[in-house]
């Protein structure tokens, strides 16, 4: 049970949104985009000081004992402000894996470090929904050797530790791997929304048995990916709210043919559809998060629906935000294109719409029936 009340979450949202408005403006963000890291370590330290990084970490590990609902509040604000910091990989994925699957020693070593902003961790699993190129773990004396490749390691360049999904005797296992260990190679690039991402090669990388997360099995990973899908939905909702707000303001101020373009019915109806799509995505996302956190048997069903509808909404809002802005929407200088590219990423991450729709359409697929039968 979360230590947070509804009121706590509202205050949390207010404080993050205020930070985004006051301290994370376009110029600040532009400077971050030009930096070598691609995100801001000073902002990261501030997030730690404000308690956000430990929001879903247990109180005994220096966190405040929240869960997915609190992370979602944070991710929504991250979407709204297009934050560049590694919230998703570190807080949702790595801290989630450690909290759910790590042993006491691993938790004590890394969770307080994450909460205090001293460590950035990420998870290497390719994508939850895509075909994999497996990393194979072969037992050695006292440990394992890892061989293989993982794509799309978010913030791999900044990671102090990478939790790698491997195949061990045909089963899923998770290992903590240091990026500086012999045999580890990272190739760095940027995502479409300007965030650091890497491909990871593991060539006979030696890991100790104690580097394995004892609870890091397929079911943990599945839960983690469901949570991450909802965190991504929440971020998309935040980004859509902001993109819709910008677009609506533009419709009210831009004048053509002697009138504000928002006076034209075709623009009004398009804007209504963007607003409805966002509203729908928001409602189903929060319903799914509520279901996950309260153990509702419909949680998996609602999560699939949430990601499917959020992805569809992200596509509509992203594309039409540019369209309604016209030429100015195409410029790198203006914010709307940045929202578009963030939404592109979120749309596909942790299962694009089609992947979740296939799960929903299977109907009898295990875990998706819930109470509805």
């Amino acid at each position, binding site marked *: 049970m979360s230590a947070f009340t*509804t009121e706590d979450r509202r205050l949390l949202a207010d404080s993050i949104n205020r930070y985004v408005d006051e301290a994370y403006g376009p110029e600040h963000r532009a400077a971050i985009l030009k930096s070598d890291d691609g995100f801001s370590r000073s902002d990261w330290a501030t997030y730690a000081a404000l308690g956000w990084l430990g929001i879903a970490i247990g109180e005994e590990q220096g966190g405040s004992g929240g869960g997915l609902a609190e992370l979602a509040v944070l991710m929504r604000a991250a979407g709204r402000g297009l934050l560049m910091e590694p919230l998703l990989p570190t807080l949702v994925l790595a801290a989630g894996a450690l909290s759910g699957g790590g042993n006491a020693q691993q938790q004590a070593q890394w969770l307080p470090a994450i909460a205090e902003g001293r460590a950035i961790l990420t998870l290497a699993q390719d994508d939850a929904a895509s075909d994999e190129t497996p990393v194979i773990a072969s037992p050695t004396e006292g440990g394992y050797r890892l061989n293989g490749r993982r794509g799309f390691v978010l913030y791999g360049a900044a990671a102090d530790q990478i939790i790698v999904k491997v195949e061990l005797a045909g089963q899923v296992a998770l290992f903590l791997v240091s990026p500086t260990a012999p045999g580890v190679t990272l190739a760095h690039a940027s995502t479409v929304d300007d965030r650091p991402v890497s491909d990871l090669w593991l060539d006979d990388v030696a890991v100790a048995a104690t580097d394995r997360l004892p609870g890091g099995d397929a079911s943990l990973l599945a839960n983690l990916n469901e949570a991450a899908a909802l965190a991504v939905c929440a971020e998309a909702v935040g980004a859509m709210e902001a993109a819709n707000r910008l677009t*609506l303001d533009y*419709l*009210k101020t831009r004048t053509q043919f002697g009138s504000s373009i*928002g*006076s034209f*019915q075709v*623009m*009004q*109806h398009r*804007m*209504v*559809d963007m*607003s*409805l799509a966002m*509203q*729908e*995505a928001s*409602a*189903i996302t*929060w*319903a*799914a998060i*509520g*279901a996950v956190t*309260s153990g*509702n048997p419909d949680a998996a*069903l*609602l999560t*699939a*629906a*949430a990601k*499917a*509808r959020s992805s569809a909404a992200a596509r509509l809002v992203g594309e039409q935000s540019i369209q309604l802005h016209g030429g100015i929407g195409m410029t790198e200088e203006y914010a709307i294109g940045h929202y578009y590219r963030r939404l592109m990423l979120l749309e596909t991450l942790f299962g694009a*719409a*089609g992947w*979740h*729709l*296939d*799960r*929903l*359409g*299977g*109907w009898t697929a295990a875990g998706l029936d819930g109470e509805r039968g």
Partner: protein
Amino acid sequence: MLGIDLMRDPAIQAFRGDVRRFCETALPGDIRAKVLAGQHLEKQDYVRWQKILFDKGWIVGHWPRQYGGQDWTPLQRAIFDDETSKAGAPWLTPFGVCYAGPVIYTFGSPAQKDRFLPGIRSTDTWWCQGYSEPGAGSDLANIKTRAVRDGDHYVVNGQKTWTTMAQWADMMFTLVRTSSDGKPQNGISFLLIDMNSPGVTVRPIQSIDKCHHLNEVFLDDVRVPADNLVGEEGRGWTYAKFLLNNERLLGAEVGKSTRLLQQLRQTLLDIQNGGQALADDPHWRRRLGELRARLLALEAVCNEYLAAAEAGSTPGLEVSALKIMGSELIQGLTGAMVDALAVKGLVYQTPALDAGWQAAPVGLPQAPGMIREHLHDRATTIYGGTNEIQRNILAKAVLGL
């Protein structure tokens, strides 16, 4: 409280269980079978079910206790609507219990309450709605039907149209023009007209589903007692808007879509193509998934509004969202059914829509009901304010455009 948590509240679940169990035992099997097969319902079918609800005390559950209701909250009412729809109950004809009744007990005189409310509750009086006219559809304030005061009567002349079930109606609540001064909205009054009055002529309109539920109603020198004016002269527009406000939270028709989705799923399991069920076809799997996701999302949106209403807030114009999403989902579902039927969905054997029809079916036996539903539901984006009007409302009232 979040809508999703509210739905799991024990008291709410208990109420849902009560309605579900009641429908299981009290809904007559022949009526249920007609509804699920998409067959024609007779007036007597509606009346029989509504009297069962009346005896249970649920027909006007959403009315205040002093008028014979149960003081249901919007959430309880939505659950009732949801469960009865899923169970295959007939459409609860709203003209009396949802429209005329609340306007009369809110704005009517004590004499009007005594005279009209009992018949509405028991469905001994059948009501219809006289709003639209040939020149006043989306632009409803443009109505031309005139009511001119003559002593203690109004003399009414004009034409109403799209009047659902007027052929069965005893009474019609009507928007009439009592003045042409000022804004068009200001000269409208809310008048109750006895359908048996001299000068009232009902002419059927057959719709594209080959059915007769719509009518034109001609009013020629109809003398209506002035006692039948509800509230004040010239305030009819306000009363009509009040009435719409009451209904907006049910605009999504989640229960109906839930039933249609189950029906679509069954159809996809039943229909074979190239040796496999359509349900196993990747295209259909994804399409079914999409409709299911839309339904779950619509339910989540509704639950948010219902949770807000439960917390005491009054729904505003933003609830137009529910009408848009709900009607477009219904059309998505019936469209998918017709697509799944493919060429079998082109045989529209209308005699099969009559209960008890015995001849051999041509094509699929379940096809006519689905085609009827599909054809009928093209109206969902038109009635109750077209979806274009709903988008205009949202653009103006919510987005400030």
